[in-house]
Structure formats: C-alpha cells, structure tokens
C-alpha cells in the first residue's frame, strides 16, 4: 500500500526514543525555555500562515476531475469528431492547432516520426472544398493523478513535402506536492488520507486532420487512420 506503513513501527519507536530524550532532558537552554517569544512567535506565524493561505490559489496545477468523467468525455469527443462535429468542441477540450496553406499536392503521406507507435487516434476529414489548406488539431491527452487533471504536451506535427510527420509529444514531467487532510479528519470523512491508495489514469490523444477535397491520404506507418463523415 504505502512504503510509510511498513516502516511505521520503526518510525514510531525511533520517534519515541528521540522524543523521550528530548522532552525529558530536564533542561533546555534557559534562553529558550524562558523566552516566551518562541511560543508567541510560533503562534503568530501560524496565524499569519492561516491568513496568507486564503490569498494564494488552492492549487497551482490542474483541476479536480473524476476518471469516469474523463473517459466519458474522451468518448464524447471521439464520437463528435467522427460525426464531423469537431468545430463546436474546440474550445471545450485542450488542443493545439496547425494549419498548412497552399498545399499543392494530391497525395498526403502520414507517418510517425522516429518514435514507436503512441496511442494517438488519427481521424481524417476530407473537406468539401479544395482550399489547398491542411488543418491539424491535436486534442491533447488528459490524465488523472489522484483525481487531479493533467494535460499532456501536444504532439509534434511537421509537414515535409507531401509527408505529414507525427511526433510523440515531449514527456510531461511533473513533480508536485499534494496536500492530504490529517488522519484525525479523514478517519471520519472517509476521504483518502496520506495512507490511502493513489491512482493514475492516462487518457489518449486525438489528432484530427482536415485535408482539401482533392487530397488522397496514405497511411505510411499503419496507424489505423479513421475517416469522419
């Protein structure tokens, strides 16, 4: 479950020993004992901290999210995109857009860059008109770490001649602190305390490519390109 738990007895005993020595050692330096500033200063700092916390954001990354909701949203997005209704979704999902204009070719090869296959779905829509413009939208992969939404970096898109190269996004490395309520609260509220289990869910990325009407798309890397209506 948690590394902490298996070390708990040793931690407890160690802490007890340190404490007994510290607390029963009959004399702390007089300057500390008789100095009421230690106590009043500490309490003042606590109150100042209490005040300060109400001024800064409760979290610096992500927002609360449920894994089920993420899955549902991903399905909705996919379905909408497949039905060609992606336009309305652009503002609802984190994405990145590319646009390559004055494309003269009639063939478009899509291939994955030097990286191995990465779980991105590629959906192609052939536009009604021939505007020589290739538009790419990457709906970024979203993940949930302990119910906190994390958004991946976008895929890398390059157009070289008549080849569209999809590159795996840079790995998002996140290192953060998460505050958990103290056990004397979580015990009664049944929320996850520090001893509770943690979870991680990684969603998938969706790449939506709109090509001019006269352009033929070739799947060079066996990505399994799907075509929307």
């Amino acid at each position, binding site marked *: 479950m948690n590394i902490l738990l298996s070390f708990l007895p040793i931690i407890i005993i160690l802490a007890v020993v340190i404490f007994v020595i510290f607390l029963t050692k009959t004399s702390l330096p*007089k300057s500390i*004992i*008789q100095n009421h500033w230690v106590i009043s200063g500490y309490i003042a700092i606590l109150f100042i901290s209490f005040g300060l916390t109400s001024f800064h954001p409760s979290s610096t990354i992500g927002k609360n999210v449920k894994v089920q909701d993420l899955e549902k949203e991903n399905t909705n997005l996919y379905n909408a995109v497949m039905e060609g209704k992606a336009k309305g979704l652009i503002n609802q999902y984190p994405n990145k857009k590319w646009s390559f204009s004055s494309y003269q070719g009639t063939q478009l090869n899509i291939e994955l860059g030097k990286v191995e296959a990465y779980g991105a779905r590629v959906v192609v829509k052939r536009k009604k008109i021939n505007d020589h413009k290739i538009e790419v939208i990457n709906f970024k992969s979203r993940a949930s770490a302990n119910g906190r939404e994390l958004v991946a970096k976008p895929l890398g898109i390059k157009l070289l001649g008549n080849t569209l190269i999809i590159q795996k996004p840079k790995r998002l490395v996140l290192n953060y602190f998460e505050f958990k309520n103290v056990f004397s609260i979580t015990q009664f509220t049944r929320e996850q305390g520090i001893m509770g289990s943690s979870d991680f869910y990684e969603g998938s990325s969706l790449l939506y490519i709109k090509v001019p009407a006269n352009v033929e798309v070739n799947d060079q890397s066996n990505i399994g390109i799907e075509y929307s209506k």
Partner: protein
Amino acid sequence: MNVIECKDVTKNYKRKKALNSISFQIEENKITGLVGRNGAGKTTLLKIIAGYMKEDSGELQVFGESPFNNLMASANTIFIHDQMEFSPALNLKEIFEAAENFYEKWDRERSFRLLHYFSLDPKQYYKRLSKGMKSTFNMIFGLSANCTLTIFDEPTTGMDAAVRKDFYRALLKDYLDNPRTIILSSHHLNEIEDLIEDLLLIKDGKELLYMPIADLKEWAIAVIGKSNVVNEWIGNKEMIHSKDMVQDQVYVVVRNDFSKVELEKAYKAGIKFSPVSSTDLCVYLTSKTKGGIDDVFS
C-alpha cells in the same frame, strides 16, 4: 487550643523506623525548636505535620484534623525546607504573585521589602539562585505567607553568618507583629536557643525532652569530683554524660532533681557542681553512647 497533637505516631521506611511512637502537643502561638541529630526523624515528623506523608500508626492532628489530604490544613500551614523547587518558568516576583493567590494572608509589601533587603532581584529566576540565596528566598517565602502554622526545616543551610543572624531577627520581629505557631528545626540548639520558647528534642524517632527552653538550664547539672566519691553519691541515678578527667576526677552530668539532704552530703564529700549549657546538654542527650567520641579512641 493545641495546634498540633501527636500521639504515638510511628513511621517506617523500608528498613528503618523513622518515627517511633512519638507523642507531644504544640500550643498555639509558640515558637518551638525541634532539635535532634541527623536522621533522628525531624524531617519525617515535619513532613507528616505538613501533610506530605501519612503516619503508619498513631494519630497526628493539625488544627484538630489529620493533615494528610486536607486542604484546610494545607491552606493554613507552610513548610519551608531545603528541597523546595519552584518552577523554572517563573521569576521570583511571579512566584510571589502565585503564592499571594494561594495564601490568603500573604503579606506582599513585606515580601518585597525582605527581597530588597537581602538583595535578591525580583526578576531573577529561582533556578539561577545559589544555594544560600535559595534558602534566603525560601525563608522570605515562609515568613510572607503568614500561615497560622509556619514550619522551617533547617532553614539556614547554606546561608552565611550575616544572613543567618538577619533571618532569626526577621523571624522574631515578624512573630511579634504577627504571633503564630512556628516550628524551627535545627541540629544545633545554640543557633536557635535565644529565639525559641519550647524545645522538642528527639532521638531515634522518639521525643526525648519537651519543655520550655528556660527550664532546660535547670534540668541537668554537672557533677565533678573523685570518681569513686561521685559514683557512690550518684548511686543508681542515670548518668546523662560522663567523662574521665585528670587525677582520677570525673565529670558527670545528671538530672537536677536532688533533695536538699543529698546536696549537703555532696558538699561534704567535696563534690563540685557546675551548670550545663543547653547546647551541651542536647549533645549529651542525643549522643549515641554515653562516653561520646572519646570512647572510640580510648
């Protein structure tokens, strides 16, 4: 009314009998000296009076009640001893403020004047005081509390001679202003002799002598003369103390309860009398063996 009534009180420690069926009564508003050698049971007795300990058998009453676990007795008694340890978090002034809160008759003005007189800084912390200064502070604490029963257990330990003298003077002045029952323990009488009214002399946990100090001078007498003459004259009277002197002379201390006939007989036999000082008498009475230290070396 008697402030303390003690009847057949016995107290045992693990191996030793600290008090052995001791009995006495202490009257109101008297200064009583409690004298005995180290280990005679003085502190044990005082602790029982102060409610620190409980007697094993017998009965001890303070203000007509058993002092053990008794708030009334505690509120009217103050016990000053050399093991007092006040909180290290409080300075002398704060200790006095706390005491004022507890002891209704606390004399604040006097407490600070005494503190000033003995050059103790009210801002000083108790733990930082030297042994002698602690004793001085404890003494001021005991005097200022103004308790109906005030007990000092060897109060002058560590004090220098000047402070010691001042203390006894302060105690007497305070007593005259505010008569109350005071018990003063010491292992030498000469220090408190001029101060006390009554003397309670104890030995091996038992009272040996309890009388007004004024009567003590008359209580015993020293007899000096040729050993066979003196021994014959004394007969089977108890010798409190005897010492061999040069030329077959002996010095014997006996109870001073001779009849006129006996005294005349003594003069005829060439026996001389001399008074015994109270201090010496106490030493003789409480010594372990009749001969004293000389016997060890003879």
